[in-house]
C-alpha cells in the first residue's frame, strides 16, 4: 500500500475508479482550487478527508491549497468567500442541513458575489434520511438566494461539472450550488481524467465598498445585479451542454435530473419502454426555457421524476401555463414526495402511468420478502464496544433511579443513538445544539431533572451560546459534554482546537461562568454515578465533562502500539474479561447494552458470553456486574502494559 493515492496524480486522458466525492476532489485539482473549508457532515465529509490525505502526503500541494475543518458551516462559508475575495477558487462542501446554518451569510454572499475569485458549494442532499436527522429539499434555497444549481449523476459528471461550476462562478460573480446526494456522493464509477492546474500565484484583496458592503443603498443595487447575473447564466446555458436529450417517438416524455435519471433509464428498459424521449437536466436553476419548450412541444404528457417536494414540476407546469402548451404535467400525483427513489420504485410507478405489467421477478422478490420480513432481528445503530458514551448513559440511569422524573435533551453526534433501544434515553432531538437550547425553556417551566448531552465538536459548533444563556438565567440543567477528541459520527475528523489541544473546553465553560464543573471518566462508573447524584442536589447549571477518547480511535491506537511492540519481539500484558457463573440478570446486556456481549447456550444453560474479538477491554461490564460473574484474567501481568492514551 503506497502513501500517495495515484488516482489524484494520473495525467490527462487516463482513467480512475472513483466515488462521486473523490471525483469532486479530482475536479477541484483540475480546476485549480486554492481554498476549502467545511464542517464535517455526511455525505460530504469524505471530500475533506480526501483533501487532508492528499495534503498530508504532498508538500507541493501544501504550497497552494489550504483545507480547514471549520468550527461550523456559517464560519466555513464566510471563510471561503474571504479567500475568494482575495482571488482564489474556493470550495465549500456541506450537507443539506449544514446549508441551514450557512444560509445567513450565504444570503449576503450571493448579493456581493465571490469575485474576483470563484466559489462553489457542494451540497449533499439526503433523500431517505440515510445519514441525517431529516431529508429537507434543499433545492428551494436556489429560488430564494438565486444560486445556479448543477445536479450531477455519475462520478464522471461530478469531476467534469465541478470545473464548469468554477468557470461559471468566476465569469458571472455568483456562488454556484453543486448539488449531490448521498447516493451520488458514494457511488463509484470510471472517471476519465483531465489536466491538473497548480495555482501558485499570490492573491490580493482590492477595496470595493459597493460590491462588498451590501447595506442600503448597495443591498438593493446588488439585488438588482443578482437578477442580472442569473439572467446572464441563463443565456449561457446552451453553450454549457449540461443537459442531455435521449430521443424517442412516444408522445409521453420524461424530465429528470441527478440520480433519478439512473433509476429512470433502467426502469424504462425493464418495462421495454424504449421509445420514451428523456430530457436529463444537468442544471435545474436557472432553466433554459427554449430547450424545455422545444422538448414539451412534441408531447401530450410529460412525467417529472425528482425526489422530495416538487421543484422541477412546479417550474415546468409554470412554463406550460405561460406558453399555452397543452401538455399534461405528471409528477407527484404518482410519485412519493418523501424518501429515496430506486429503480424498483420508478419502475412500479411508470408501469402504472403507461399501463404496463411491472417486472414479475421484481414483484415476486418483494412479495416473498414481505412474508418473512418480521423474523429479521432489528439491528439499530448503537454505540461501539467500549464507547464512553454508553457507560455514561448507564451511570445516568443508575443515578436517576432509571430516569425517574428526568428529561434528557439529546443532540447531534454519536449520542444521537441513545434514543434507540435498549438505551432509549433521549427524550428529544432537534439539531446541532438544539437540545441544550430547548432545555433552557424546559427548565423554566418544570421542576423535573433536566439533563442535556453535547459532544466536543457540537459544543464548539453552536453550543457555547446556549450555555452562556443557561448560565445567565441560572437554569437547573446538568450538561454532559463528551470530550472524545474526534468528530466521531462522521468518521473521525479533527475537532477544531481539541484534537490538537490548542483550546480547553473546561476553561471555556469556566469563562462562560459555569460555577459547578466536574471532569469525570465513564470507565469508572461508580464514581461517575456519585458525581451525578451530587450534581442533582445543586441549583443552576452543572457541567460534567466526560473525558475519554472515542473507543474506536483509542482502540486503533492501542492495537497499533501492541502490534509494533510484538513486531519488535516484546511481550505485552494481555487482559481478558470472561463471564462465568452468569445469573442472567441482564444488567450488562440490557441496561449497559454492550455489543461485545452475546446471549448463548452452553450445556443447555443460557448465559452471557463476551466475544473476545469484539471486546476492547474497557472493563465497564466488569465494574458493574451485580453478581461479580465477570472475571478479569491477566494473562501476562509482568509484561509491558499498553493502556488507552489520555485524551
Amino acid at each position, binding site marked *: 500500500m503506497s502513501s500517495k493515492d495515484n488516482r489524484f496524480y494520473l495525467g490527462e486522458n487516463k482513467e480512475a475508479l472513483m466515488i462521486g466525492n473523490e471525483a469532486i476532489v479530482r475536479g477541484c485539482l483540475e480546476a485549480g482550487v486554492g481554498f476549502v473549508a467545511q464542517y464535517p457532515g455526511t455525505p460530504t465529509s469524505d471530500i475533506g478527508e480526501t483533501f487532508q490525505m492528499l495534503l498530508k502526503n504532498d508538500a507541493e500541494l501544501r504550497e497552494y491549497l489550504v483545507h480547514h475543518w471549520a468550527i461550523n458551516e456559517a464560519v466555513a462559508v464566510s471563510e471561503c468567500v474571504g479567500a475568494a475575495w482575495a482571488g482564489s477558487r474556493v470550495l465549500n462542501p456541506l450537507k443539506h442541513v449544514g446549508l441551514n446554518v450557512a444560509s445567513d451569510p450565504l444570503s449576503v454572499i450571493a448579493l456581493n458575489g465571490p469575485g474576483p475569485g470563484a466559489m462553489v458549494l457542494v451540497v449533499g442532499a439526503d433523500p431517505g434520511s440515510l445519514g441525517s436527522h431529516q431529508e429537507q429539499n434543499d433545492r428551494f434555497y436556489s429560488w430564494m438566494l438565486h444560486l445556479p444549481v448543477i445536479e450531477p449523476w455519475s462520478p464522471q459528471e461530478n469531476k467534469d461539472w465541478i470545473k464548469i461550476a468554477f468557470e461559471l462562478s468566476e465569469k458571472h460573480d455568483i456562488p454556484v450550488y453543486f448539488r449531490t446526494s*448521498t447516493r451520488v456522493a458514494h457511488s463509484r464509477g470510471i472517471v476519465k481524467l483531465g489536466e491538473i492546474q497548480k495555482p501558485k500565484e499570490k492573491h490580493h484583496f482590492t477595496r470595493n465598498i459597493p460590491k462588498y458592503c451590501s447595506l442600503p443603498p448597495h443591498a438593493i443595487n446588488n439585488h438588482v445585479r443578482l437578477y442580472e447575473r442569473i439572467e446572464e447564466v441563463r443565456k449561457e446555458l446552451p453553450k454549457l451542454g449540461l443537459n442531455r436529450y435521449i430521443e424517442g417517438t412516444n408522445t409521453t416524455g420524461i424530465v429528470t435530473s441527478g440520480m433519478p435519471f439512473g433509476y429512470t433509464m433502467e426502469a424504462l428498459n425493464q418495462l421495454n419502454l424504449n421509445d420514451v424521449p428523456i430530457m436529463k437536466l444537468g442544471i435545474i436553476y436557472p432553466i433554459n426555457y427554449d430547450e424545455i419548450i422545444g422538448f414539451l412541444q412534441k408531447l401530450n404528457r410529460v412525467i417529472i421524476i425528482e425526489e422530495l417536494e416538487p421543484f422541477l414540476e412546479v417550474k415546468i407546469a409554470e412554463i406550460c401555463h405561460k406558453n399555452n402548451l397543452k401538455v399534461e404535467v405528471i409528477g407527484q400525483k404518482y410519485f412519493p414526495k418523501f424518501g429515496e427513489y430506486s429503480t424498483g420504485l420508478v419502475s412500479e410507478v411508470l408501469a402504472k402511468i403507461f399501463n404496463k405489467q411491472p417486472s414479475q421477478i421484481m414483484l*415476486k422478490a418483494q412479495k416473498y420478502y414481505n412474508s418473512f420480513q418480521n423474523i429479521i432481528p432489528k439491528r439499530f445503530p448503537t454505540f461501539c464496544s467500549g464507547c464512553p458514551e454508553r457507560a455514561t448513559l448507564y451511570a445516568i440511569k443508575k443515578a436517576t433511579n432509571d430516569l425517574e422524573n428526568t428529561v434528557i435533551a439529546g443532540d447531534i453526534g454519536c449520542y444521537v443513538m441513545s434514543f434507540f433501544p435498549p438505551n432509549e434515553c433521549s427524550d428529544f432531538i432537534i439539531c446541532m445544539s438544539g437540545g441544550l437550547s430547548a432545555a433552557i425553556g424546559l427548565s423554566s417551566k418544570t421542576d423535573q431533572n433536566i439533563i442535556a448531552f453535547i459532544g466536543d465538536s457540537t459544543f464548539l459548533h453552536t453550543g457555547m451560546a446556549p450555555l452562556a444563556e443557561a448560565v445567565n438565567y441560572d437554569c437547573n440543567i446538568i450538561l454532559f459534554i463528551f470530550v472524545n477528541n474526534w468528530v466521531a459520527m462522521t468518521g473521525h475528523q479533527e475537532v477544531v482546537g481539541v484534537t490538537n489541544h490548542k483550546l480547553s473546553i473546561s476553561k471555556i465553560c469556566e469563562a462562560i461562568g459555569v460555577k459547578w464543573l466536574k471532569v469525570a471518566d465513564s470507565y469508572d462508573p461508580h464514581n461517575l454515578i456519585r458525581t451525578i447524584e451530587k450534581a442533582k442536589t445543586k441549583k443552576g447549571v452543572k457541567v460534567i465533562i466526560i473525558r475519554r477518547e472515542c473507543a474506536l480511535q483509542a482502540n486503533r491506537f492501542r492495537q497499533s502500539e501492541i502490534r509494533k511492540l510484538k513486531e519488535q519481539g516484546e511481550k505485552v500484558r494481555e487482559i481478558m474479561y470472561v463471564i462465568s457463573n452468569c445469573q442472567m440478570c441482564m444488567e450488562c446486556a440490557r441496561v449497559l447494552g454492550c455489543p461485545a456481549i452475546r446471549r448463548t447456550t452452553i450445556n443447555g444453560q443460557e448465559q452471557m458470553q463476551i466475544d473476545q474479538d469484539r471486546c476492547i477491554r474497557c472493563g465497564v461490564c466488569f465494574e458493574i456486574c451485580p453478581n461479580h460473574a465477570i472475571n478479569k484474567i491477566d494473562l501476562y501481568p509482568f509484561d509491558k502494559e499498553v493502556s488507552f492514551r489520555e485524551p
Partner: protein
Amino acid sequence: MNHKTKFQETDIINIVIAGTAGQGVITIKRLIEFAAHDSNCQSIFGSEMHGLAQREGAITSHTRYQKILSHNVRKNLYSPSICYGGADLYLGFEPSEVLRRAQFASERTIFCINSRTIPPILVAAKMDEYPKLETIEKILKEISNNVFFINATEMALDHFDDAQKMNMIMLGFAVASGSIPFIKIDDYKNVIKRELRQPDMNIKAFDLGYEKGKEVFG
C-alpha cells in the same frame, strides 16, 4: 445444481454484499470494482453507504459492472443500485443480514454466506429473537437452489488468528463459484497488493477461500 450461469459480455453483473459494520463490506466491494477496472470492464457503477460505518449497524453495498457496453444506449448501466430480484451473487458476511436485503435476490442468485452470527444487542438483551440458521437457510432456499454456507470466521481464526480475514476468504470462495465473471484472479491479487495492509496474509486468505470454493463448486 444450475449455478454455472453463462454470462454475455454486455450483461450487467449485479453483486450484493451484506454484513454488519466493521466486517469489511465496503473493502471487499472496492476490491471487486478495482479488479473489474483492471480487467478492462467498460462500465462500473456501485453504491456504498458511509456515515454509520462503525456503529454496529447493518451495511449493504451494491456492485455492478459490464464487460462491454451495449450499442443500444438504453440497455446499459445507469443506476449504482440493483433492482429487487436482480442479484447474480449475494455475498453475505452475517446470516441475518442476508435476510435483511433478500428482496434483491431471485432464483438466479448464488448465495455465499459466512455462517458466523453476530446477534444484534436487542437479541442479547432478550428483547428480540435471532432466527435459527436452519430457518434462514430454508427461507433462502425457497428463493434459489444455490445457497452455500461456509464457516469463514472460524477458518480465519484457525489459519490467521484474525477474524477480519473472513471477508477475504468469502471473496475467494465467491470467485470460485463463477458468479463474478470477466475478472481475472491476478487482478484481485494485484489490487490487494496495491490497496491493503498485510497483502501477503490477505492473498493467503483469498486463496484459502478459493480452494474451499473449488471443493464446493468444482
